[in-house]
């Protein structure tokens, strides 16, 4: 998996965020079985305890659940996944708005810019 850690933030939180994205985008298949803590830690280059902490939190959020003997599984509950995608989207939109506001755009200008951009993309795709 494509991990990308920034400095200055707790790693376990970054893992939670990034795994949420992997799950929301389907990079990790819903309902699928997760690799072991050790393998994930190795993959991410982090301490297994840190990975464990992150996974526990993801379990608390309902994104993962563990079967006692068979390991950890990604949720396939559509409601949970929908909420996840919507939460993440909101997060992106919020960040997006904040960034553009810093450039001095009003809310209307932002909406107009977005609509315009979407049209351009559609045209390009149509070509």
């Amino acid at each position, binding site marked *: 998996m494509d991990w990308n850690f920034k400095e*200055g933030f707790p790693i376990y939180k970054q893992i939670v965020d990034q795994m949420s994205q992997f799950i929301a985008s389907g990079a990790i298949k819903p309902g699928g079985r997760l690799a072991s803590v050790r393998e994930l*830690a190795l993959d991410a280059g982090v301490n297994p*305890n840190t990975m464990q902490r992150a996974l526990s939190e993801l379990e608390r959020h309902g994104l993962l659940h563990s079967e006692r003997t068979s390991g950890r599984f990604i949720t396939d509950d559509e409601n949970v996944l929908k909420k996840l995608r919507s939460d993440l989207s909101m997060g992106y939109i919020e960040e997006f708005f904040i960034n553009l506001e810093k450039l001095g755009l009003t809310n209307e200008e932002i909406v107009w810019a977005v609509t315009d951009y979407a049209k351009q993309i559609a045209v390009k795709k149509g070509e």
Partner: protein
Amino acid sequence: MGVIECRDLTRKFGRTDALDSVNLSIESGRIVGLLGPNGAGKTTMIKIANGLLKPTSGILTIAGNKPGKETKAVTAYLPDREFLPGYMKVKEIVNMYSDFFGDFRRDKAEDMLAELGIDPGKRFKNLSKGNREKVQLIMVMSREAEVYFLDEPIAGVDPAARDYILHVIISNYNENAAVVISTHLIEDVENILDEVVFIRNGRIVLHDNADDLRAERGKSIDKIFREDFKWQADL
């Protein structure tokens, strides 16, 4: 009680306090960074833990025992220099470790050597510097010890080798063992640390969970270290 316990640990050299009343407790299942400038006392503490030095006063115990025959059987040490006999062939070194340490896993060592393409028939002194460092690490990490002391395990090694070494440390993780990594190269290592200990002039100035510290200070451990140790003069 932690698997490593220091209580008022003091070590003097002449009039200098290499360690000054150090109190430290490290639990099993943790990977701990022992961070500090040269001469801060890191190597002194590690030597005491390995029975190579005696404290001037105070106590250090490993799994409840003072350093000696029993603790050496469960402590694995990777010093920051070449310590294996140069004339021995790699496979002879594997045999030697197997001979002396009951917790040595020969199959693990042989797998890692094969993985790295190191010829067991070659004499240690004839290996490249990078390979010598890797062989030393492999020997130490192939032991199933209760405590590991790694003194500058990734210094003087190329970046790919560094990744491999960190990989080995993570994959070797065992909740019944503690790993203490003493290093200057904090940036490369900090992601694998559970806890960090800052030591200066023989005293512990900080001992915290790595992630908690990041949350608290909003910076990488490396940056925090640079901040805290900016003024090197005696405070």
